[in-house]
């Protein structure tokens, strides 16, 4: 009778101590550095990948017209505002002529004066000619001296020269007047093409220097995107490749387009290749100039090769490779990698063949001595 309670106590104690020890051993082996590393595996597949390039750029207008006076002056009036659509040849505004009108009037007077001078010179020349001829006849009958005849001939020649001078003077005065009128006409700011006003840089009363733009026009049909691709991932860019364009303001809406040209000059400072991409159909409403756009250019599909996810690629020193699973043990295999696409698939040119089992994700960095256990997904990676 005395044994039983003792045995029960012993059993109870064992019931506490043994699970405790089992748990301790489990904890010691399954957690911490001694535990096997959870990994997920995948098989190398033979696939054709379609590389794509991703760049960002800004919406720009292909043709921008900066309209301003050719002489320094003051803006008199400006009839258009930003956003207005204008026709080719439309009057946009006018510069203040200041004293130009008065100068035109002065020049007109000068022209009339030259005309009068011409008339005077014509009359003088006609008279000089008549006199010269009369003295020639008188000299023929020996009624006058040779000296007088010579004088009359000289007067005729002088009158001739004076007449030419008066003619040229008139031509000069006319040209001067034309020039002033042209200058006067140039004060009118006229739209060279049909377009949209994008900038109104000066308001009436502002003095502008020669060549400074007062109004800026763009041709909305000529919108394009100046795209920058990092040079490291720009191989294969060419004109006419299809492009998908996402505007920052229209996130989620993909617009179709194509590469118009690859600029022969790259940006040396930012290490980017510049590309012009155009929309297949201009979006409505028009995106503002300068809006950020993301452009994805699809390159032609490549022939099927063994393909792995880029998450599987590890590096030991400078050598890229993957952890291949052979008999449940990780084994580092050096590989040579080919092209990659934007979904993170990489071609393997050497080192693996289709069907090989490789480690894709691992809970921690692997080493050849790591013990692994393959799981469906690494714990904690999904909600």
């Amino acid at each position, binding site marked *: 009778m005395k044994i039983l309670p*003792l045995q029960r*106590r*012993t059993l*109870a*104690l064992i019931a*506490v*101590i043994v699970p*405790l*020890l089992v*748990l*301790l051993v489990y*904890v*010691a082996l399954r*957690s*911490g*550095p*001694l535990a096997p590393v959870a990994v997920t595996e995948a098989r190398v597949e033979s696939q054709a990948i379609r590389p794509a390039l*991703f*760049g*960002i750029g800004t919406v720009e207008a292909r043709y921008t017209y900066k309209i301003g006076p050719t002489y320094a002056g003051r803006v008199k009036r400006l009839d258009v505002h930003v956003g207005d659509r204008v026709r080719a040849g439309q009057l946009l505004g006018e510069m203040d002529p200041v004293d130009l009108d008065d100068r035109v009037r002065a020049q007109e007077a000068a022209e009339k004066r030259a005309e009068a001078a011409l008339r005077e010179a014509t009359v003088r020349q006609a008279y000089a000619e008549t006199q010269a001829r009369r003295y020639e006849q008188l000299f023929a009958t020996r009624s006058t001296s040779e000296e007088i005849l010579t004088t009359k001939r000289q007067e005729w020649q002088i009158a001739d020269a004076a007449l030419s001078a008066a003619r040229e003077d008139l031509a000069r005065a006319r040209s001067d007047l034309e020039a002033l009128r042209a200058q006067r006409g140039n004060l009118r700011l006229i739209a060279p093409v049909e377009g949209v006003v994008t900038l109104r840089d000066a308001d009436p009363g502002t*003095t502008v*220097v020669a060549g*400074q*733009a007062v109004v800026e026009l763009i041709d909305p049909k000529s919108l394009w995107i100046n795209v920058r*691709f*990092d040079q*490291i*991932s720009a191989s294969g860019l060419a004109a006419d490749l299809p492009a998908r364009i996402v505007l920052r303001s229209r996130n989620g809406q993909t617009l179709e387009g194509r590469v118009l040209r690859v600029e022969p000059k790259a940006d040396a*400072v*930012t290490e980017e290749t510049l590309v012009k991409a155009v929309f297949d159909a201009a979006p409505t409403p028009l995106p503002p100039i300068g809006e950020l756009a*993301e452009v994805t250019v699809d390159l032609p599909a490549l022939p099927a090769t063994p393909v792995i*996810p*880029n*998450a599987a*690629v*590890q*590096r030991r*020193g*400078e050598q*890229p490779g993957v952890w291949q699973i052979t008999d449940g043990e990780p084994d580092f295999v050096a590989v040579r*990698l080919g092209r*990659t*696409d*934007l*979904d*993170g698939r*990489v071609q393997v040119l050497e080192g693996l063949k289709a069907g090989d089992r490789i480690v894709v*994700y*691992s*809970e*921690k*960095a*692997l080493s050849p001595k790591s013990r692994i256990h393959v799981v469906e*997904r*690494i714990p*904690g*990676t*999904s*909600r």
Partner: protein
Amino acid sequence: MISLAGRDILHSWGKFVFTGVGLGLLIGVTLVMAGVYRGMVDDGKALLDNSGADLWVVQKDTLGPYAESSSVNDDLYRAILAMPGVARAANVTYLTMQVKKGEQDVRSMVVGIVPGEKGGAPGWPPYLVAGRQITRGHYEAVADIATGFRIGDVLTVRRNRYTVVGLTRRMVSSSGDPMVFIPLKDAQEAQFLKDNDAIWQSRRATSANPAFNRPGVPGLLDAVNASQASSSSVNAVLVRIKPGAVPDEVAESIRRWKRLTVYTRMQMEEILIGKLIATSSKQIGMFLVILAIVSAAIVAFIIYTLTMDKIREIAVLKLIGTRNRTIAAMIMQQALALGVIGFAVGKITATYAAPLFPKYVLLMPGDSVTGFFAVLVICALASVIAIRMALKVDPAEAIGG
């Protein structure tokens, strides 16, 4: 021969086990504290391991990029690539900031990495736990799992939005903040570009300055504004050296010819562990020592009390002529058994409690082994006092009581 200790334990096993569990929780806390200390040091080492660099090239006379801010031109890496012994050099930026996702924000270290290279330039996360590495040159992110972000989430860093395409693990800064990897050009913007308000204000300030806004020079203001908004700096250049090259020699030649400060792995570890986390790790270390002393005192006290509880029984044992050695062995065995149970409970609780901590807690097997023997030694020493008391007891007490 019957085991006196075993019989005594069985006599009041419930009390014994509960005392052991209580002791275990105390030991558990001590082990966790050691884990916190180890985790702190490991965070620093993880930062260096994950960067995958052999050398860190930073601004001259700074302790950058982790311990101090450092800024170098982003085309410097080309010059470094030309140095003998350098296999690869990559720009990198580090910026600790609040990364927003919807309403919540997470303190994290934003790392700008050079995108586009297969398998990764220095600075890339060496392994992933889900998703893929960054393939686009802009607006993609790989986040540490500790940020709480998941694949497909959209984060906001400054004014740009990034889609999480991959997850990684144990990528932390030296202060334990999880990392978010984004493409370098975006990170440069995030770090050096001012916010929109500041840009507007600086444009206004520039246009108010007559030196930059001259009526006769129409394009000057635009040019000045453009030059102010550009950012062409990075925090450091990570360098991997060629196999066979000696890090110190390569570092010395860069130091000498490029007049920059270069740190090797050893020096970087010294900076991170010796300088950056020195005081906080000392603080934790100090706490660990105090906790160990307190634990030892409590263990001693518990064993002493346990012995004192049965001082009558010991007196009876002496009265019936039990040898001192037997009594001493009983107390010693009990103390050690208590220690073993306590350690087991402590180890188990520590292991299960460690992942609950917001920062990394690293429980090293070596620490556990040391802890185990420390517990045994403390128990043995504590039992010595109890044994002295037990041996001094007068057998007459058993009757006289």
